[in-house]
C-alpha cells in the first residue's frame, strides 16, 4: 500500500468541501421542509425540552355561583392552583369569556390574595403570603383590565420540576350604594390562570 501524498490529500479535500456544501444545503432544505410545511400540530405536551402544566382544584365546577346579590352581599372562595411542569414559569390570573349586563361589575368589589391552604371550595385553613401581590378593584376593572397573560394579575413564579401549589383567595362584596338599575344584572367570567415558561 502506498502512503498518501499531497496530491491525494488535496483531492480528498477538494472532494470533501463541495460534498459538505451540498450536504449542508440538503440538511437545511429538508429541515426547512419538515418544519414549515403545513401540518396538523401534535397535541401531546411531553417533549424532552420541558413542560409547563397548570391545574386548579375547581376545573369542572364554578368558583362562584352567587345569585340574588344585593347591596352588602359578600362571599369568598379559595382555589388551589398547582403547577407541575418541569420548566420554571410565571403564572398570571386573568378573566376570559367575560360578559356582564346592567353594569353590575362596576358595583362588585373584588379582592384577590395569594397564600397557602384552603381549597376545594372553602377558605378554611387559608394563610395569606405576606409579601405577595394582591388585587383590589371592581369586577368590571378586572374583566376589562386583566384579559391576558401580559396584563394579568399575580407574581407567582414556579421553580419547575415538582408539584407546586398556590392558593388564590377571591372575595367579593356588592357595594352598599349600588343603584336599583343593576337589579337583575349579571356578570359571568372564567378565572383563568396561565403559566408560561420563562
Amino acid at each position: 500500500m502506498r502512503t498518501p501524498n499531497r496530491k491525494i490529500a488535496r483531492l480528498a479535500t477538494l472532494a470533501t468541501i463541495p460534498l459538505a456544501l451540498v450536504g449542508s444545503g440538503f440538511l437545511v432544505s429538508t429541515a426547512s421542509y419538515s418544519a414549515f410545511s403545513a401540518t396538523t400540530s401534535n397535541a401531546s405536551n411531553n417533549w424532552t425540552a420541558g413542560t409547563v402544566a397548570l391545574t386548579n382544584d375547581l376545573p369542572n365546577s364554578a368558583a362562584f355561583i352567587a345569585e340574588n346579590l344585593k347591596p352588602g352581599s359578600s362571599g369568598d372562595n379559595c382555589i388551589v392552583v398547582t403547577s407541575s411542569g418541569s420548566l420554571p414559569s410565571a403564572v398570571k390570573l386573568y378573566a376570559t369569556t367575560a360578559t356582564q349586563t346592567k353594569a353590575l361589575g362596576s358595583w362588585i368589589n373584588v379582592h384577590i390574595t395569594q397564600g397557602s391552604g384552603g381549597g376545594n371550595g372553602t377558605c378554611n385553613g387559608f394563610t395569606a403570603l405576606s409579601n405577595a401581590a394582591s388585587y383590589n378593584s371592581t369586577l368590571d376593572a378586572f374583566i376589562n383590565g386583566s384579559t391576558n397573560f401580559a396584563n394579568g394579575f399575580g407574581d407567582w413564579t414556579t421553580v419547575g420540576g415538582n408539584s407546586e401549589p398556590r392558593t388564590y383567595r377571591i372575595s367579593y362584596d356588592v357595594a352598599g350604594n349600588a343603584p336599583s338599575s343593576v337589579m337583575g344584572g349579571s356578570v359571568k367570567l372564567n378565572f383563568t390562570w396561565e403559566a408560561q415558561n420563562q
Partner: protein
Amino acid sequence: MSLCPWVRLCAVTLARGIVALVLSMTFWAIAPIALGWTTTTVMTGSMEPAIAPGDLVVSRPIEIEDVRPGMVLLGHDPDHHERLRLHRVVRQTGRAIATKGDANPHADSSPMDTAAVLGVGYLRVPSIGAPILLVAEGKWGLLGLFALGAAVVVSLATAPAVRRDDQETQPPPRGPRESSTRGLGERLLRRRSSARTDSPTSALTASIRRRKQVAAVAACALIASVPNAAPAGAAVFTSVSRTGSTFVAGTAQAADSLTCRNNPDGTASLTWTYTGDRPRDFDVLVDGRGSLARLGPDAREFVLRPSGFVSLGRTSIVRIRTNLTREWTATSSSSVSVTSANFFWVGVVRCA
C-alpha cells in the same frame, strides 16, 4: 509503511468536511439577513418536533393577506415585551392571528396582532445555534466541552493532511514524529519559522498559510456574527387552567294577584302572592303616596281599617311595594280599590 498516514488523512479530511459543513450551514443562516430577512435562535421546545431548541430559523417578510393557517409565523410576543414568538398559525380573525406551539396542548392565549408579524419561517438550520442556547441557559460546562470539541476539529482541519516525512519525495530530516493532536499555537509557530526561509517552496507555503489565515479570520467573523444577527426567538410553553363564575344581582319582584275581601267587622283584607327572593320588607302604598304600613318579609295579608276623622266615600288605590333594600324596590302593577267612609269613631272600609 503503516496505516497511520491514511488514518491521519481521513481524520484531517473529515475535520475539513465538518468545518465546511458548519461554515456553509452558518452561511445559509446569515446570508439571508442581507436580503432583510430575520434569523432567530430557537430557545425553547414548544415547536418540537418540527423545530428544536438550538435551531436557527430564517424568516422572510410576508404580506398579511398571504398568511395562512399552518404557516410558522415569527412576530413580537404579545405576552412578553422584547421577546419573539415563533409559532404556527391556527386561524386569523380580523387583525388577530391565533398561534400555537406544536408541542403545546392549546393555542396561545394571546393572539398576535397583524402589526406584530415579522415574517414567516422559511429556512431551518438545525442545531447551529446550540452555543447561543448554552450561553443563554448558562450551561458553561457544556459550552466548554463544546468549545474544546470545536478546537480539536478546527486544529485537525488546519493541520496538513500529509506530513512531509510521510511523503514519497524525501523531505529534509526532521525531529521526532509529531502527533496530529499537537497544539495549534505550536504548529502556527512552526509554520511562521518555516515561512521565514527563502526557498521557493517555502514562499509558496507561506502564501498558502496567508490564504488559510484569511479564510480562518473570515470563518471566525462569520460565526461571530451569528449571535449578533440572531435575536432569540423564545417560543413559549403555556398551560391554562380556569374555573367559571357567575354573579347575578337579585331583582325585587313585584307582589302579584292583589285581592280585596270585605270583613264582617267593617274592615277589608288585602292579600297578595309573592314568589321572588325573600325581601327586606313590604310597604303598603295608598294612592302612590308614602307607606301606610311596613310589613315583614313573610306578610301576605294586610287588614285595612278606617282611619281619619271625616271621609265620605273616598276611593283609594292600594298597591304593595317589595323592598329588597331601601333602594332596590318594586311596586305591584296590580292594585285594589277600596272605599272608606268615616265619621269620627265609626267607619267602614269596603272593596270598591
